[in-house]
């Protein structure tokens, strides 16, 4: 009964979304306040209804109601509660409901905070978001309905893929979707601006918080996914250039470009049509990613269950959303140009360079990911071009980008002084030299490119610090003066420094991965193997039972030093978990980290004679990859807290003279 309630709520949400679209768009066209206001209420109602539908689905999973087909197919009564709940979005249908839930959450947020915007712009944004909602709600109800019943109900369910039963993955999709779907807001702003035919600094200021918020969550989501792959798959890899991973990387690259180009629109009132195109592109890439993952067009280890009907439906959605917005763009965007001119060497110029490179990166990933599809269409097969392609195309693009990251913020708007910028970056230059010297000293004869990568990381990191020191006039003015400047330095600028520092940390982690050492051996009880100057001893093996699996658990001791000086560094307990329901074995790796490097041990198969295959790795700086990503997201969050996004609100209201400065709901 409860699940029918949810089903009904979702159908009602579809009606409300249609209403929202009609009321807001028509209200904005006729400048009818009442219709626009009703449309805003509809956005709130849509969120409430989808939240209700989602809650009934969660409830069905929590109580293991196997009379619901979706629950029976994807859950099992033995599963720990956490994975029963995360199972809601661990399958195609449920994850689509999460998708529209987040879309409607953003819609409700735009409606709630929309007071600060011109009512017609807010109404049009909500209208576009309503259309997207209608499309995806129809998609769920017609092709991917999780509320269908199964009769007679089975005694138990099929369970969730054991590899997905992991806390890291339980929270990965919600973050990823917050990022993906957040791009829908920027997209809606872009389309609304095209309808109005006006893009200005104020528009850039209103759209920026949404872009930043979705970028932050997408960054966290991608980092979580990569971390999960690292510790779960037992290979020690953290990025496989898999189509599903690429599907999340492409919108990330595009939205990184968007964050940067919208600064130019805000400050210099130029690059407008480009920024609008980027906003469309970013969301389009999110949609294409959804299409690729769910249509079976590409082969992937993560792909959802396939159904050609779904593929056709999503393709139609793509045609409507991307084709429609690009058509609008083709006719409206030529009118947007104007604004300030700038020299090639200037802050704007550097941001354009940043955009060009990031978009090229996205295009590279796009071509590499879709290459199999292009071949397929001309009669070719399903193939993957794999990492050799990406290594050779993506990495060379990153080098000029990293050089520019440090220089760009040092340049003045309109016309910059390149030589001067490099001169002021002398400290960063020294940092690069030191990094290179240390790198080559420690790893002489090792991978040269990796040491250069560490040099790039030092350049980006030190460059960010030098830029901050310059702004605060650190070491030049008195301490009091610098302190005063530090207090007045805008949060968005601190955010940039943090995000660039995060990038440096991630780059260091990526570069250093070339120095990893590994030891793959067949080990018997009591044996030891060397691992990068340490010793790994195999102490014991036992069995233990989990809630829905049985495991072989091994005891390893990591030792440092020899003979009498030997001491224990860490105990490592990797497991091999067998899930009887799915007849599947999953490795549970053991990782000892000191945040500078990881010792990584995975237990393989037994040989039947008391020997166990053991894969052990030493991975220097690998935690930096994710720490850097978290710092980047933190930078975005700090930037998001900048007063500027709220000051615009206050001044506009003060100008109208109708509301107190701190009034309203914002």
């Amino acid at each position, binding site marked *: 009964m409860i699940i029918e309630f949810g089903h009904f709520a979702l159908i009602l949400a579809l009606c409300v979304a249609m209403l929202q679209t009609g009321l807001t768009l028509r209200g904005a066209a006729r400048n009818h306040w009442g219709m626009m206001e009703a449309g805003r209420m509809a956005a709130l109602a849509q969120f409430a209804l989808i939240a209700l539908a989602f809650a009934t689905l969660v409830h069905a999973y929590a109580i293991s109601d196997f009379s619901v087909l979706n629950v029976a197919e994807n859950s099992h009564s033995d599963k720990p509660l956490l994975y029963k709940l995360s199972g809601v979005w661990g399958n195609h249908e449920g994850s689509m409901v999460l998708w529209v839930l987040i879309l409607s959450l953003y819609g409700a947020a735009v409606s709630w905070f929309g007071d600060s915007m011109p009512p017609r712009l807010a109404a049009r944004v909500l209208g576009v978001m309503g259309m997207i909602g209608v499309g995806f709600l129809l998609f769920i109800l017609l092709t991917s309905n999780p509320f269908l019943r199964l009769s007679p109900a089975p005694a138990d369910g099929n369970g969730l893929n054991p590899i997905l039963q992991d806390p890291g993955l339980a929270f990965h999709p919600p973050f990823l979707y917050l990022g993906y779907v957040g791009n829908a807001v920027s997209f809606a702003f872009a389309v609304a601006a095209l309808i109005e035919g006006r893009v200005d600094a104020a528009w850039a200021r209103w759209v920026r918080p949404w872009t930043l918020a979705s970028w932050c969550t997408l960054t966290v989501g991608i980092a979580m996914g990569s971390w999960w792959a690292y510790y779960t798959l037992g290979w020690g890899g953290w990025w496989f250039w898999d189509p599903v991973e690429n599907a999340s990387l492409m919108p990330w690259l595009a939205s990184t470009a968007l964050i940067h180009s919208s600064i130019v629109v805000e400050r210099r009132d130029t690059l407008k*049509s480009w920024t609008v195109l980027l906003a469309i592109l970013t969301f389009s890439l999110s949609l294409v990613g959804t299409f690729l993952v769910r249509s079976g067009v590409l082969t992937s280890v993560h792909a959802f269950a396939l159904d050609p009907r779904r593929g056709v439906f999503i393709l139609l959605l*793509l045609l409507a959303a*991307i084709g429609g917005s690009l058509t609008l*763009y*083709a006719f409206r965007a030529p009118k947007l140009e104007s604004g300030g001119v700038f020299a090639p060497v200037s802050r704007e110029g550097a941001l354009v360079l940043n955009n060009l490179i990031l978009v090229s990166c996205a295009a590279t990933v796009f071509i590499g990911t879709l290459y199999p599809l292009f071949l397929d269409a001309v009669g070719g097969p399903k193939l993957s071009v794999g*990492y050799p392609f990406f290594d050779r195309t993506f990495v060379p693009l990153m080098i000029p980008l990293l050089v520019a990251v440090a220089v760009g913020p040092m340049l003045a708007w309109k016309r910059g002084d390149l030589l001067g910028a490099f001169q002021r970056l002398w400290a960063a230059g020294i940092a690069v030299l030191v990094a290179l010297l240390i790198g080559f000293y420690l790893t002489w004869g090792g991978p040269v490119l990796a040491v250069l990568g560490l040099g790039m990381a030092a350049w980006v990191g030190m460059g960010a610090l030098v830029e901050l020191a310059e702004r605060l006039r650190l070491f030049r003015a008195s301490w009091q003066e610098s302190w005063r400047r530090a207090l007045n330095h805008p949060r968005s600028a601190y955010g940039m420094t943090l995000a660039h520092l995060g990038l440096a940390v991630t780059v260091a982690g990526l570069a250093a991965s070339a120095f990893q050492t590994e030891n793959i051996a067949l080990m018997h009880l009591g044996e030891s193997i060397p691992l990068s100057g340490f010793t790994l001893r195999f102490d014991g093996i036992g069995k233990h039972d989990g809630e829905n699996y049985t495991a072989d658990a091994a005891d390893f001791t990591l030792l440092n030093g020899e003979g009498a000086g030997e001491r224990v560094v860490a105990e490592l307990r990797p497991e091999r978990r067998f899930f009887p329901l799915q007849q599947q074995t999953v490795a549970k790796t053991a990782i000892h980290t000191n945040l500078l490097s990881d010792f990584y041990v995975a237990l393989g198969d037994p040989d039947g004679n008391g020997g166990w295959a053991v894969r052990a790795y030493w991975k220097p700086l690998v935690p930096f990859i994710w720490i850097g990503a978290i710092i980047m997201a933190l930078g975005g969050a700090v930037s998001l807290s900048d007063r500027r996004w709220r000051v615009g609100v206050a001044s506009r209201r003060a100008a109208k003279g109708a509301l107190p400065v701190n009034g309203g709901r914002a």
Partner: protein
Amino acid sequence: MNWRRVLFLLPLALFMVLAVYFWAGLSPDHDPSLLPSAMIGKPEPVFNLATLDNSGALTTDGMKGQVVLINFFASWCVPCREEHATLMDFAKISSVPLYGIAYKDKPADSAQFLASLGNPYKRVGLDQDGRTGIDFGVYGVPETYVIDKQGIIRWRHVGPLDADAIAKELNPLLQSLGGS
């Protein structure tokens, strides 16, 4: 319509081309493995590859006089993972030797790939620079070739081998060649 307007139409035009490809990708009657090869009926390219277990070189001459299967694979290739179980089953029941060529792959990664998923290959040659792959006309991995007793390429399968292709095409061919 001036050139500037055309420029603004470009994104739409590109997307439309892409949409056609997407549409083609969805078509169910599209058989990806039917790809004629210019190499069929020609002698197998000459190669001399280092092997994964350092057991001497894997060469064209070493295979002469018997029907063999050559499978190009790589640890970084997702379809190869999908194909692997099929190859394992094939190696268990078939007497035709299956040779692997690790295409543009680091030896350590290939070794790890086979250690964790099992090794269906009689021997594994290392084609790290992809040179042998180019000689064979490999588009990408995985690809499988049948070489007859005279060293002539008789069959090529592009993309992952599946039970269907083995039952309907490969096994009849191997029987007619006198391989099994």
